[in-house]
Structure formats: structure tokens, C-alpha cells
């Protein structure tokens, strides 16, 4: 799968799919999935039908992607490989032009290095760089060396010619597992090294592959990157916390919690908050976009508390079973205020009270006049 075996760049996705014999139905299914994965926030999915999305994507030129591995477990690659729809063979290689990827490329040794050089040269300034894994800075960066170069050198070199840099996975985003205390290799994320251009973080351990595809295709079709949040995550996928649409939310609201693994509450599918679930503070699309199309195949779905892998300060920083400190900048409105509301005063009642009061005053005046009239002569000198 070296660069020489990939058709020359400049073909559109539609042309490539036709050439590779991928059915239109297959492509349309993919487009539908992409719409589900990115319902809002992306220009390429901002249409009413998969056909319209397919038409837009079809016109886009295939983006050249260079994928670098740093200190990683290859989990992010694995999750990309295990997308069942589209699968790698059928679609990804035709939709994007994966010109260099250490795990899936056939070449090795000097051939591989040549492929990297080729890809960089052919698409200089136009390719998308995807980085997987954290970059070790300790010991002069010598904890990671590929073809005699440190990770830092390699990243600086490839990134300097890239159009866009995407950090995939929590490690590339901000260090991930390797950076957890005591962080012997001095692992950091991509954006700690690359300061000259914006880095898109797609955290997760592993991240949802559709977020990567959506981001890359948005760039290919429109030339712009999606809107990012304050820590560089595409908002179309990281706009809300898992808690907001967690399937177990009803149990949280009702106060039904699993307190031990395997207890009655746990087996009944109750809320995992007490087991340390970080869903309430974790911005991720997990609860709305199923992982790799397998129903309920995500931590909370299978009864495991969320570890907050898409959050910089939570996964690998906060102990797994510590309950999350739920912070909403503005709490929801579904609470009673401090003071209770009393009963309403009936206007009819006040009216009647007025009439009675008036009648009494009137009767008093009339009676005292009568007393005056009847007893004028019956007075006493003062003592």
C-alpha cells in the first residue's frame, strides 16, 4: 500500500469509488451513518438526505492522509479498522487517500520511509496529518525513535508541511495513559509540540472513528475545519456531556444507583454514578452515536462506569471509582425555589369581608345615633 500503488491524487471520491467498484448503495449507507454521527455542526452533513450528502462528498477530492504513530497502543487504529460500515477495504481507502500508515501499510524499512517522503512531496502543504499516541519529551525525546529520528523531530518535520493536524485519541490530544502520573517518558500531546498551526483534538480511548472521518471529509469538501471547543475538540461531536442523553439518566433522576458491581441495582441497569461514572462531566458523543454500529457497545451500555476519556483532566488523572464533581455553569430549572408559594386570596372572600366590616361600622354608627336620640336627657355630670 505504498504511495506508488495509490492512484495519483486529484481524483474525486466519486471517481475513485466508481473505479474501485464500490456500490452506490454502499456509499449511501455510509453517508447516512455520517449524518447520524454528525447531525449538526458540519457543512457536509447539513442536508436532508444521504443522496445529497453523497453528491457533495462525491465531488470532493480525496484527501491525502499521513498517519503517524507515536507512543500508542494502536487502539485508535484498531477502532478505525473495526468500523463495520464502511469497512476499511471497501471504503476508507477509497474515500480518503491513506498514503502513509505504519500499521496498515505493506511496506517496511526503507520502502516505508520512501513512501512517507513521497506522500509529503506529492501533496506538500495539502495533506492531513493524523497523529496517534503521545510524544515523549523526556531524555531528549529518545524514548521513541523511528528510522533514527525521535518522535519530536518526525512530528515537527511532517507537521510543517501539513495542511491540517489532527490528534487522534487521548494520548495524542494531551498525553493519555503514558502521561499519567509519574509520567516517566515526559509524554505530551501534539499541541504541546506543534504551536505553528491549529491542532484538532479528537480525544477518546479510543475515539469514535466517525468523528475522524467527519472531520477529515469536512476538510476535504470545504477546505475548512469544523468548529472547535476551548480544548480543540470538534464541537459537532463534543458539544454535550454523556449524562445529557445517557440511557440510564432516568435512574439517576429517580435516585436509583448501582452501588456495587453485580448488586441488584447494577444488574437492573441502574445509574452507575456511584460506581464512579464520569458521564455527567464528560463531553463525548458516546451516548448518542453507537460505537462501531454495535448496539449498546460502549462502557455505560455494558455496565461499566465511564472513565471520562475524552476529558483532559479526568481520565488517567481522577481515580476510576471516584464520583464526579458535577458542575453545571447554570443548574437546570427543574427545582423548587427557596420559598414556598402560599394559597391565593379569593377576591370574593375579601369582598364579603369588606361588606361585613362595612355593615358593622354602619350598624355601630346608626346604633350610636339612636342612643343619642333616645337618651338625650339622660346624661350624667362628670364625677
Amino acid at each position, binding site marked *: 500500500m505504498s504511495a506508488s500503488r495509490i492512484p495519483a491524487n486529484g481524483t474525486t471520491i466519486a471517481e475513485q469509488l466508481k473505479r474501485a467498484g464500490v456500490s452506490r448503495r454502499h456509499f449511501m449507507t455510509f453517508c447516512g451513518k455520517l449524518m447520524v454521527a454528525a447531525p449538526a455542526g458540519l457543512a457536509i452533513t447539513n442536508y436532508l438526505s444521504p443522496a445529497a450528502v453523497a453528491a457533495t462528498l462525491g465531488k470532493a477530492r480525496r484527501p491525502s492522509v499521513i498517519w503517524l504513530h507515536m507512543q500508542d497502543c494502536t487502539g485508535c487504529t484498531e477502532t478505525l479498522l473495526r468500523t463495520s460500515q464502511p469497512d476499511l477495504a471497501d471504503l476508507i481507502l477509497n474515500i480518503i487517500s491513506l498514503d502513509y500508515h505504519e500499521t496498515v501499510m505493506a511496506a517496511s524499512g526503507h520502502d516505508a520511509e520512501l513512501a512517507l517522503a513521497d506522500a509529503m512531496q506529492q501533496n506538500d502543504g495539502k495533506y492531513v496529518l493524523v497523529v496517534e499516541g503521545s510524544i515523549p519529551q523526556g531524555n531528549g525525546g529518545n524514548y521513541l525513535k523511528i528510522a533514527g529520528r525521535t518522535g519530536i523531530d518526525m512530528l515537527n518535520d511532517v507537521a510543517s508541511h501539513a495542511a491540517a493536524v489532527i490528534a487522534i485519541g487521548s494520548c495524542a490530544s494531551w498525553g493519555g495513559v503514558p502521561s499519567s502520573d509519574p509520567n516517566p517518558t515526559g509524554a505530551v500531546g501534539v499541541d504541546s509540540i506543534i504551536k505553528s498551526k491549529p491542532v484538532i483534538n479528537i480525544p477518546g480511548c479510543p475515539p469514535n472513528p466517525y468523528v475522524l472521518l467527519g472531520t477529515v471529509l469536512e476538510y476535504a469538501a470545504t477546505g475548512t475545519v469544523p468548529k472547535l471547543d476551548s480544548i480543540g475538540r470538534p464541537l459537532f461531536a463534543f458539544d454535550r456531556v454523556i449524562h445529557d442523553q445517557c440511557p440510564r439518566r432516568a435512574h439517576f433522576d429517580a435516585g436509583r444507583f448501582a452501588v456495587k458491581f453485580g448488586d441488584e441495582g447494577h444488574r437492573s441497569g441502574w445509574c452507575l454514578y456511584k460506581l464512579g461514572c464520569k458521564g455527567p462531566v464528560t463531553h463525548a458523543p458516546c451516548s448518542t452515536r453507537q460505537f462501531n454500529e454495535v448496539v449498546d457497545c460502549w462502557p455505560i451500555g455494558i455496565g461499566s462506569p465511564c472513565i471520562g476519556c475524552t476529558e483532559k483532566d479526568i481520565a488517567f488523572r481522577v481515580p476510576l471509582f471516584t464520583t464526579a464533581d458535577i458542575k453545571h455553569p447554570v443548574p437546570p430549572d427543574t427545582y423548587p425555589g427557596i*420559598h*414556598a408559594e*402560599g*394559597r391565593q386570596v379569593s377576591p370574593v372572600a375579601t369582598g364579603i369581608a369588606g361588606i361585613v366590616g362595612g355593615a358593622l361600622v354602619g350598624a355601630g354608627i346608626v346604633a*350610636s345615633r339612636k*342612643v343619642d336620640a333616645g337618651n338625650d336627657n339622660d346624661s*350624667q355630670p362628670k364625677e
Partner: protein
Amino acid sequence: MEAHAQHQPVGGKLDTWPFRILLLLGAIGLMLTAWRFAVGLGASTALSDGYPLGLWIALDVVTGTALACGGYAVALVVYIFNKGKYHPLIRPAILTSALGYTLAGLAVAIDLGRPWNMWKIPIYFWNWNLNSPLLEVALCIMAYVGVLWMELSPAILEKFGIRVPLLEKALMWIIALGLLLPTMHQSSLGTLMMLAGPKLHPLWFTPLLPLLFLVTCLAMGYAIVVFESVFSSMAFHRKPETAMLAVLQKIAVYCGLGFVAARLIDLAVRGKLGYAAHFDLYGIVFWIEMVLWVLPAVMLFASPRVTLGSLFRGAMVIAVAGGLYRFDTYLVAFQPGPGWHYFPSISEMFISIGLISLELAAYVVLVKRFPILGGRRAS
């Protein structure tokens, strides 16, 4: 009692239009009472957890029993200060007291949420919470209703020609009890709201509440005797006891002035007088009370002659002043917190009106048929 001959039934027919109206209002009140027990307090009253005590307590019990203190006030003059010449006033005063306290007891029974436990109050002495001012009020009022009817019993029995020598012998000690009990529970009605503590507006909350309540009940007691005597003399064409009433009026006025002085000095000493300068509901109501208390004194000292009319007006003002003070202490100055409102519901008002109408109707029946009123028929 040596003064038996002074008391005579008024006579005359009972079936008059005012009497019929009273009975009609009473019937409406009784029907609403039945409805209240059928649907519960929530649906039939405007009471709430913020204002758990409402019109029935503040008006019928707290204000009503003070207005029914005529018997207490006159008995004090007659038996303790030994002014036998006031004896003609005592039976009507005792009658209004007996009726007023009975009405208060009925109002409480209607107001209680669990009246079927009421009998336990006097019986379960081993459970008595002696710190509770309400317990004292409840026990005293229960006892006092009995005492009042016993005090009145000679008048009732006389009519049927029955004499109970034992009762006549014991009557003096019963009367003494009839003087002790109001002293206790009328002051305790003040202590009662002291326990509302911080929820009571500072202009009303004071450790002097028991004294203030006792003084107001005396003033109102004398005032109501004056009012009732003048009214009865009008309605039943009796010769009014103007000279005696003038003296009672004076006592009431002095009680009122003493009340005003005590209250102002107390507020000043405790440094709460500043609240009176606030131009809010509480400041305004406070000054209305004060003016109403001082007004009868002005009326009394300003007019050259004491006429029945001036007595009548002065007595009414005192009764209103005292009633307002007590009503305010229980409802207006009670601040359960933001968000709570109370205004009596229509059924609450008509049950109160019905009870008062029945009381008045009973008064009419008793004075017309039994030897209650003193004095001579006006020529």
C-alpha cells in the same frame, strides 16, 4: 344572692325579624360546619402551612373571649372591690361571657384537625406538657366555660323554681375560680404568641405579651359591658345605668392608657421603637391600634357631659382597639415567611358569622325568658 329581685325576664315575643335573620345565618353556619367536617380543612378554609391558625382562632377565640371578659371584669368590681351596687350588671355580663366562651370552644372544636382526641386534653394529665401555653389556655377555657354556666345557673334554675343549696354555698369559691381562670388564660393567650418568637413582628413580640393581653381583656370586658347595657336598654326598653357605666368606661379607658404606656415604654426599652417609624403595613397598623386606644380617653376627657351616646361610642372604639390588637398579634403581625398569604375563605367567614349569630340569638332568648337583665323598665 340578695339581689335576685333586681333581675327579671324581659318578656315579649321571640319571633321577630332580626331574630329570624340570626337563625338563618346560624343555619348557614351550621351547614358549612357540616361541610367542613365532610371535606376537611384544606378544601373548606384558606388555612395553609404558613398560616395554620386563621380567622376562627384569631377572631372567635382570641378576640371573642376577650369580648366575653365582661363577666370577669364586672365580677372583679363586684366581688373583689366590693362594689355591690354594680350587681345589676353582673348577670348579663356573665351571660355574654358564658355565651362567648362557649362559642370560642365550639370554634376550637371546628378548627381542630383531630377533635376526637380533644377529650384527652383534660384527662391525660400524665402527658401534660406544662411548658405549653396552649395547654393552659385549653384547660382554663374548658374549666371556665363550666364555671361560667355554674355562675349563671341560679338565673336558669330560678326560672324553674329550683334551688340547689350546695351550689349556692359553693358559688363563692366558683366565682373566685371564675376570677382566677381568666387571669391565667387571658395572659396565656399572649404567652402563646410569644412562642412564635422570631415569626412575630418586633412591634408585637415582647415578653410583656401576657400583661398586655390581660390588660386588653379587662378594657374590652368593661367596654363590652357598657356597650351591651346601653344596647339592651335600647333594644329592650330598660332604664340605663348611666352612672355605673360611666365608671366602668373610665376603668376601661385607664386600662387602655396603661396599655399604650406599657407598650411604648417596653418598645423603647428594648430598642424596637424604630420599627414604628417604618411606613409599612406593620408601622401603620401599629399606629392605628395606638390611636384607637387613645381615642376613647380623648372622647371621655374632652366632652363636658357623659351621655349614653358617648359611652356607647367610646365602648365600641375600645372593643375595636382591643380586638384589632389581638387580631393583629395572631394574624397581621405573624410573618411565616415569603410566599405565604392568608385571607379567610368564604366558608370560614360564614361559619364565624353563623356562630356569632347563634350566640346573639341565644342571648335574646335567655334575656327574654330568664331573669338576667337588671334595672327597671323605662317608663
